[in-house]
């Protein structure tokens, strides 16, 4: 355990140094929050353009979803970019691989900093939404148990997704730098981050319901803004036809998050180990490409 912790913490310190110590904290923070804030503003303007300024709770819906999604976008890049950095740029991956530390643990350490940075982006986006855009927020109404449960599983799920993408990046060439961005963009469609799942075709709704991130976003949104529109349920949605009621309860959100999250986490480890074995078989650990 001590050795494992030592490997993880050393990797986390290196990851943070590589990502963050090239500038002063103010510039770093400005760059970190520019992306999530802009992503939220794109959606806010889209909503305002169509609603003519009478968007009501929809603004809160898109700001919360977009803010949470920024953690996914930043966080899932952590491990895959570590693989690409260490293999293609620093040429250190082979040395990390043959070190006594567990390879996955080292990568987790290298990537954890980006997840935390993504979380900062989420918090700042939500704060700007509340303070600048005037989203109604009452701290006294927060459902703390659901929030803590949802936030914890959210962290785990972002790490799990990052592990899967690291497994992909072990197999592919240098231009995979943009793959995490592409994967996050695609998941954006089926997780109900910025629009209710009910507007999607049935098969895509089903795909959304088995995606843990869908339940995470819904749980955190419900916990922070009780009574806000549901991203999962709604009249005519697949959830409503399966569950028999329109809006999922807090207990349903928590249980669904546990079930999908546990399966997703286990699957990510299996996928990574398979990828690792294939990479070793085919000599991909120290392969450098470039186009």
């Amino acid at each position, binding site marked *: 355990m001590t050795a494992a912790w030592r490997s993880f913490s050393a990797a986390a310190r290196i990851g943070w140094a*590589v*990502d963050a110590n*090239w*500038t002063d904290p103010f510039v*770093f923070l400005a*760059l*970190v929050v*520019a*992306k*999530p804030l*802009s*992503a939220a*503003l*794109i*959606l806010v*303007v*889209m*909503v*305002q*353009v*169509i*609603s003519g300024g009478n968007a009501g709770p*929809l603004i809160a819906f*898109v700001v919360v979803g977009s803010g949470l999604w920024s953690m996914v976008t930043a966080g899932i890049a952590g491990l895959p*970019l570590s693989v690409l950095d260490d293999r*293609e*740029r*620093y040429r250190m991956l082979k040395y990390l691989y043959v070190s006594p530390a567990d390879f996955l643990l080292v990568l987790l350490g290298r990537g954890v900093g980006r997840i935390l940075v993504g979380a900062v982006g989420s918090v700042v986006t939500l704060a700007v939404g509340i303070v600048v855009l005037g989203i109604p927020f009452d701290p006294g109404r927060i459902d703390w148990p659901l929030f803590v449960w949802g936030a914890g599983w959210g962290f785990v799920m972002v790490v799990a997704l990052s592990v899967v993408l690291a497994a*992909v990046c072990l*197999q*592919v*060439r*240098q*231009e*995979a*730098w*943009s*793959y995490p*961005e*592409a*994967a996050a*963009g*695609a998941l*954006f*469609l089926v997780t109900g*981050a*910025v*629009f*209710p799942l009910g*507007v*999607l075709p049935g098969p895509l709704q089903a795909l959304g319901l088995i995606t843990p991130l869908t339940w995470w976003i819904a749980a955190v949104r419900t916990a922070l803004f009780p009574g806000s529109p549901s991203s999962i349920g709604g009249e005519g949605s697949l959830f409503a036809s399966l569950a028999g009621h329109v809006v999922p309860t807090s207990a349903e959100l928590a249980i669904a998050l546990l079930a999908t999250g546990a399966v997703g986490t286990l699957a990510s480890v299996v996928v990574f180990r398979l990828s690792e074995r294939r990479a070793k078989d085919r000599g991909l650990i120290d392969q*450098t*490409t*470039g*186009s």
Partner: protein
Amino acid sequence: MTVPVRAASAAGRSARPAFVGRVTSSPADAAVWSRRQAILTELRAVRGRAYPRVRAALREKSWVLFEILLPFLATSAFVFVYRALQAPPEYVGFVVLGGAMTAFWLNVVWMMAAQLYWERDQGNLELYFAAPMNLMSVLFGMAVGGLFMSSTRAVIVLAIATYVYGVTFSVSEWALLLAVFVLTLAALYGLGMILASLFLMWGREAWQLTQALMEPVYFVSGLNFPVVRLGLLGALAVATIPLAVGLDAMRQLAFGGAGPTSGLLPPGLEALVLVAMTVVFLSLARFFLATLEQRARREGRLTVRWR
């Protein structure tokens, strides 16, 4: 003066001069290139730098999933935002057009702007500088190779999204639309060349800066909504960012230019803005590249890796 020759074979073949495949009397004479030789060398450099990108696209099949299918799904997410809001159908067209054009912007940011920085880390940059060619040819080759990949992605996203979401185009000036599209690409890649020379001076901030060049640029360019809605910010974007002015013009030309599709400026005027941007950006790229190369040489940054 003795002319170095390759050893003739025992079979009596005639001896060949050692200087780059042509008869010259000295190394100094060999260094004098005709205009034709110089142009052919630059063209070879363009082809040589474009080649790995085209081949990589054909060899690495995973890019079809990650650079075509997944971005199509990301574009679809914004389509469904508008559908959830019950927006007029033109807005879905805006998203589809914007989704197609992001392929080029992403290519400019990831595979032009940040490329020289990555080439330096990989050890290729010093070889580029040592080779008898202009670095602009390398950048142009990157652009040509990148255009192959991003055009494929853009066309597929546009075609599939148009079919799946039933986007209706209303084009009356095909020639102007095509001209605006080509000018947008020229200005975008000119901007990419400027950014590439700036990235030469930067270190690990490159990744953060590429991130900062994405969503913030999408927002001010009005990727999914008419840029005119941003007021002064939109006007500033149209004056400085090729993606903003190109999208605004193409939107007007592709969807009729009335109602929600009305733009900030008439498309003809925006085409002129793009011409000016292309000239300015390419000139600046040439200037920046020369200036920053000199500065990087003085500060010893051309071969310093991983800082």
